[in-house]
C-alpha cells in the first residue's frame, strides 16, 4: 500500500519541460537564486528588455517597472525563475511609512513582482489609487505601506526588497523580505 502511494505521487511530478522554459517564456519549474545585496536591475519587458535600469528610468509617482536582478560582477541576469521578478516604482518619499522608507532609495521601492494570490505578475500601476495591481484577479497593493493588500483576494503583502543607490546606481541592499509567490494551496 505504502509503496504504491509513493510511486503514484512520485510519477506526478511534472518536470518534463524544465529544460526549455527559460528560453521560451517565463521559467516556472525552477528555484534559481533570487536577488541579493549588490545586485543591479535590468528591464524585464519592452523595447529595453535586458538593459540596465538607472534611477532616472523611474518617473516620480508613476509607472511601475518590472525588472530582473543582475549580478554586477558577472552580468548574469537572475531570470531563472519567475519568482525573482521585481516590481520597481518611485513614490514621494514623504508618503512612505517608516518601514518602507527604511528600505527605499530616493523614493524608489521594490517588491516581488509575483502576486501572493496565485502567482501572476504584479504588472500594473493604478495612478488614481497609487496602488500596484495584479490584473489576473485584481489584487491591489499599497507600495507606500509595505505593499499591504488594499483590495482583492491576495492573502498577504508582497515580499519587499531593500534598495540602495550606490555611486548613482540602483542596487538591492539585501534579499527579499517575506515570502515570495503564492501560498501553498
Amino acid at each position, binding site marked *: 500500500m505504502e509503496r*504504491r502511494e509513493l510511486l503514484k*505521487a512520485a510519477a506526478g511530478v511534472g*518536470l518534463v519541460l524544465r529544460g526549455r522554459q527559460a528560453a521560451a517564456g517565463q521559467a516556472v519549474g525552477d528555484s534559481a537564486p533570487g536577488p541579493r545585496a549588490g545586485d543591479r536591475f535590468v528591464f524585464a519587458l519592452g523595447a529595453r528588455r535586458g538593459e540596465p535600469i538607472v534611477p532616472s528610468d523611474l518617473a516620480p509617482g508613476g509607472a511601475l517597472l518590472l525588472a530582473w536582478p543582475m549580478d554586477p560582477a558577472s552580468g548574469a541576469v537572475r531570470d531563472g525563475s519567475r519568482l525573482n521578478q521585481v516590481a520597481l516604482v518611485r513614490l514621494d518619499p514623504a508618503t512612505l511609512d517608516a518601514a518602507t522608507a527604511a528600505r527605499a532609495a530616493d523614493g524608489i521601492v521594490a517588491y516581488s513582482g509575483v502576486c501572493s494570490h496565485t502567482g501572476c505578475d504584479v504588472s500594473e500601476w493604478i495612478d488614481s489609487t497609487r496602488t500596484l495591481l495584479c490584473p489576473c484577479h485584481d489584487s491591489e497593493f499599497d507600495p507606500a505601506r509595505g505593499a499591504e493588500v488594499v483590495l482583492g483576494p491576495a492573502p498577504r503583502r508582497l515580499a519587499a526588497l531593500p534598495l540602495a543607490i550606490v555611486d548613482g546606481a540602483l542596487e538591492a541592499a539585501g534579499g527579499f523580505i517575506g515570502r515570495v509567490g503564492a501560498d501553498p494551496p
Partner: protein
Amino acid sequence: MIPTPHRTAALAVAAACALTVAPAAQDDGDGGYTPVTNERLRNPEPGNWLMYRRTYDGWGYSPLDQITTANVGRLKPVWTFSTGVREGHEAPPVVNDGRMFVTTPQNQVFAFDAATGDLLWRYARELPPALQQLHPTNRGVALYGDKVYIGTVDTHVVALDAATGDVVWEQAVEDPAVGYYITMAPLVADGKVMVGTSGGELGIRGFVAALDAETGQEVWKTHTIPSPDEPGGDTWPGETWRNGGASVWATATYDPELNQTYWGTGNPGPWMGDARPGDNLYTNSVLALDASTGAIAGYHQYHWNGSWDWDEIDPPLLIDIERDGRAIPALVHPGRNGYLWILERGPSGIGFIDAEPYVYQNAFTAIDPRTGRPSYDPEHTPGTGKPASFCPSLTGGKNWPPAAFNPGTRLLYIPAIENVCTSMEGRPVEYTPGRMFTGARSTYEIRDGADHLGELQAWNLDSGELVWRREFASPNWGPVLTTAGGLVFMGGTNDRHFRAFDAASGDELWSIRTNSGVIGIPSSFAVDGRQYIAVQSGWGVDAQRMQGGLDRFRGERTHVPQGGVIWVFAIEE
C-alpha cells in the same frame, strides 16, 4: 516513468502525501473495476455518470427517478470529504459502478467508494513552484478502459490506473511557460483522449489535441486559428494569428453517428478588435472536428472580431427540436454574448437556425436571419483608447457553467447572470511570452434599478419561449443538473446554498447551506438501487473575481469562505 534524476526528491514529497492518505485508504486491488467502453460511453447505465455531462449530448441529465419532487425535501447528506485545497471546485463527481472520481484545484484526483465515501486512492500532482495560475481549477476526469484521465495546469495529460491511482503515462501537451494550461475535463471519443488549453489572456494559439488512450502519443492536433495558408487564415492581419487566443477550455459534445466533436472556442487576443481587423476565425465559434482525423467538418462563428472577452467555450448541447413542424438535429448554445443560439448539425457542416437574447444585451444591433452574423453598436464596442460600456459584462450572460436539458419537460435550464455590465478601454500591448496579452482594463457595473443579478431560466426550445425564471440577488455561477425525478439541482450563489427546483414550475423544493459557494457540476448516480446526488462546494476563480468587482462597484466586501468539500446526498431511509 519519471526521469531518474528527479526520483529522489519526488519520493520525499510522495512520502508526505502517503502519510495523509494511508489511515483512511482502502485498497480494493486491481479487481472489481468495470472497464469503460465506447458502447458504455454512448449508452451509459442509468446509475452511472461516466463523463463531464454524463452523456455525449451534453445534457447534464440523469434518468434516475428515485429522488422526486415529492420526496426531495427529505434529501440529507450521506457523506462529505474535505479536499484540503482552496479555490474553484468545479469538477463533477464522475461515477462508474460505485467508484467515484473527483478532481480539485491543484490537480488532485480522489477515488472513493461512492456509497460510503471510503477513500480508495489519491493522486496529488506536484506543480512547479513558480507556476502562475490565472484559473486555479480543474473540471474533472475522463474515463476509458481501465484508466482515469486528467489535464493539468502545467499542461500535461495524465493517465491513471482506475483501480490503483498509479500513473500509467503522462504526456506534455504544450508549454506552461508560454501561457498554455489545462483546466478542462478531457473528452474520450472514438477511442482517443482529447483536450484543449486555456491561455487566451496570455497570447496562446488555441488547439484541440487527440492522444492515444493507451500510450498518450498525439494522434492529431487541430489549431483553432488557421495559419495564413489555410482556409480562414486571411481573417487575421499580419502575424496576429500566432497569438490570437481561441482557447478551448470546456469539454466538447459529440455526435457518434456523424463522428463529429463540437468544441467551443474562446475570444481573440489581444482583446480589442481594432488590434486585429478581420473576422478572426475560429474565435468565438463552435468547431465541428472529425473525431478520427481532427479535420474541421464545419463551424459557426457566434460573433466576429470580438472586443468583449466573451469566450464561447461552452460547447453546444445536442438536442433534437421541432421548429415550424420541422425536426431539427440542433446544436443549442446559451452564449456568453447573451444570445441563445440554435444551430443545425449535419454531415456537411453547421447551419444557422435562430438566435435570441436571453439577458439584456446592448452590443448587437441585429442578427442576419440567414447567416446568424451579428451587427454591432459602436457605442458599446470598446477599442484601443476608446472606452465603452457594454452588457452583459465580460463575464457574459452565462459563463462556463453548463446548462442542462431534460427530455421529460423538454426544457433547457440556463444558469444566467443578468443586469451586470462592463466598462472597458483598450490600450496598446506588446506580446511577451508568458505574460498577459489582453491590452485592456475593465470594471464591472450594475444596471440602474437592478433587483437581482442571478437567474435560472427554463426555455422551451420547440416554441422558443421562456417558460419560467428564478431570480437570485447574487450572480449565478451554478452548473445545472436535471433528473427524471422532475428536478433541477444547482448552487452558484454567493450565499453557499445548494438547491433543488421543480423542473416544471421552477419552485424551490429543497436547499442546504454548505461550507462554501457551490460552483461545481452536480451529478447523480445509483449504488445498490439507491440514488445519490453529489456536488463539490468550493468557491473561487472567476466567481470570486466577479464578486470582488461587484463589491468594488458597490463599495462593499462580501466574504465567501474557501476550501473544498465533496457532498453526497440521498433520501433519508
